[in-house]
């Protein structure tokens, strides 16, 4: 616990505050854009379905299918304001925050923090101070992971707080309807998603720690950690191997809705747009995959660090 306190004390730095402020700003801007898009989309949506002739399709099965797709799109657009209003309610904003931090924005924010916090120990040549005080490298590795994970939890909290404060204002400014879900349902959804995000944030933090002991530098750590997450997403988009990508395990565990290919309203995450429908395993398979990945990453990081010569 003393080591974790030391790591957290070191995180009290301009970089960490800057990343937290950027995360809050990102969440608010995304919410503002989402609320505006939802309101405008609903206002400008046609009140009735177009005819087959208007769509340039001959009457028949083809037209029936086209009408079904159009009906679904219209329903989604018209439901957008109510859905975004629910996402921006102070309680349910927790689920939105969890979705954003357990996806690409959170991964990139933690890669940045890992670069400064863990990789910076090598670039700043302070790792030798740490090791002459505490020679137990496994403990240092665990403390780095713990502090980065807590930083991720902090970012999620900051995003939730920013959305909780600005969400109702944005909803009112865009004339979004009042959310119809009960407070209990909203809180339950938020806590469930935040709880699931804790594991994903731990995986992102572990990837950052592993990148730091492999690259031994700020830039190398950030680039490697971010690159690893992007590589997971690329792998998840490839047919046949998607199931082996940790990105699909995140998708399965978090239960992100498939698709969300365009930002017409407020996306619940920045992850599922890279993964095709049917590419994700169930939540329990996702959980098993993520726990295995977390353990493997930490074991490798600890082993590499324990054997590494510290010469800087």
């Amino acid at each position, binding site marked *: 616990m003393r080591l974790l306190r030391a790591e957290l004390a070191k995180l009290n730095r301009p970089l960490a505050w800057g990343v937290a402020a950027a995360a809050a700003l990102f969440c608010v801007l995304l919410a503002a854009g989402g609320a505006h898009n939802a309101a405008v989309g609903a206002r400008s949506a046609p009140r009735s379905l177009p005819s087959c002739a208007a769509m340039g399709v001959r009457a028949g099965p083809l037209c029936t299918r086209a009408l079904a797709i159009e009906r679904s799109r219209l329903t989604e657009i018209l439901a957008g304001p109510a859905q975004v209003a629910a996402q921006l309610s102070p309680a349910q904003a927790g689920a939105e925050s969890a979705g954003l931090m357990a996806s690409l924005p959170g991964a990139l924010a933690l890669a940045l923090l890992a670069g400064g916090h863990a990789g910076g120990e090598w670039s700043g*040549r302070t790792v030798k101070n740490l090791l002459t005080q505490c020679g137990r490298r496994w403990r240092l590795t665990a403390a780095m992971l713990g502090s980065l994970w807590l930083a991720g939890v902090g970012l999620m909290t900051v995003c939730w707080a920013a959305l909780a404060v600005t969400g109702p204002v944005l909803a009112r400014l865009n004339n979004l309807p009042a959310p119809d879900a009960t407070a209990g349902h909203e809180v339950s959804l938020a806590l469930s998603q935040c709880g699931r995000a804790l594991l994903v944030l731990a995986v992102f933090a572990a990837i950052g720690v592993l990148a730091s002991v492999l690259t031994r530098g700020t830039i190398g750590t950030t680039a490697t950690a971010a690159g690893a997450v992007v590589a997971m997403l690329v792998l998840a988009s490839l047919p046949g191997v998607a199931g082996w990508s940790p990105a699909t395990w995140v998708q399965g565990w978090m239960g992100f809705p498939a698709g969300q290919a365009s930002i017409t309203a407020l996306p619940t995450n920045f992850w599922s747009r890279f993964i095709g429908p049917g590419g994700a395993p169930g939540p329990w398979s996702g959980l098993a995959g993520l726990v295995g990945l977390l353990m493997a990453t930490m074991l490798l990081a600890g082993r590499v660090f324990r054997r590494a010569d510290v010469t800087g």
Partner: protein
Amino acid sequence: MTDVIRCEGLTKRYPGVTALDGLDLTVPAGQVFGFLGPNGAGKTTTLRILLGLIRPTSGRAWLNGRPVPDPDGLAEVGAMIEEPAFYPWLTGRRNLAVLALTGPPLPAGDDPVGAALSRAGLAGVADRKVNGYSQGMRQRLGLALALLRRPSLLLLDEPANGLDPAGIAEFRALLRTLASEGSSVFLSSHLLAEVEQVCDQVAVVRGGRLVEQGPVARLAAARARVRVSLEPADVGSALALLRRWPARADGPASLLVDAADGRAVNETLGRGGIWAHQITLTRPGLEETFLNLTETIIPEVGGAAASR
């Protein structure tokens, strides 16, 4: 008397470079021990192995009688390796407080962090952020970190770098005080004048091997020379008479004899019927001794080192 540091056949090889080549070294307790060598001799590598920062390729080392790496033993060791680095966004005091948390609990006392900062002469600037520190201040902060746990053994690598003359004098006094309080100090330095003034013993390394070790005075005495001025016609006969010592002509009317006893040289010459005009004993300082050991006289004192 126990040994605070012991190295047996310590070797460290990097691809294409042998940093340490079978170093054998013993450092007794309670002394200020100087560790000398030219750049690349293996001094910092030795310190890093002792502190568990790097692993030797072969050989063994002990700190305070415990084999290294020994995480538990680090509580009794204070160290400063090369140019100290700290977290620039934290104050000097906060840096020490954070690093104190990473190791075993500090010894009981009112304010161990404040005491270490005062001892290193940083009390006045302890609450300034480190990014505003000069190199000398960072050096002092490194010293404060080394002193934080009141260690029984201090390992210091070039600790006087960046210190002004007053700072060097303070540092010299501090080392003597620490030794008088019972701490052992292992000091790697290029400042030979400082080493000569504060160290009880020195070891000289070159090419990753120990070349010489002993009390500073004995090392200098071992390099003492006698200069003999005499008639030019007597030079040849005198060299023959003095063959028990390494001797050579040094000009038409002068000889240099590698001996510490001018009287014995004089007596030998007198018995052979040669009377010198003048006999002068010269004792080189540590600097000259160091240069001799690490450059020109290597073949005489360390055949193995010279053979590489």
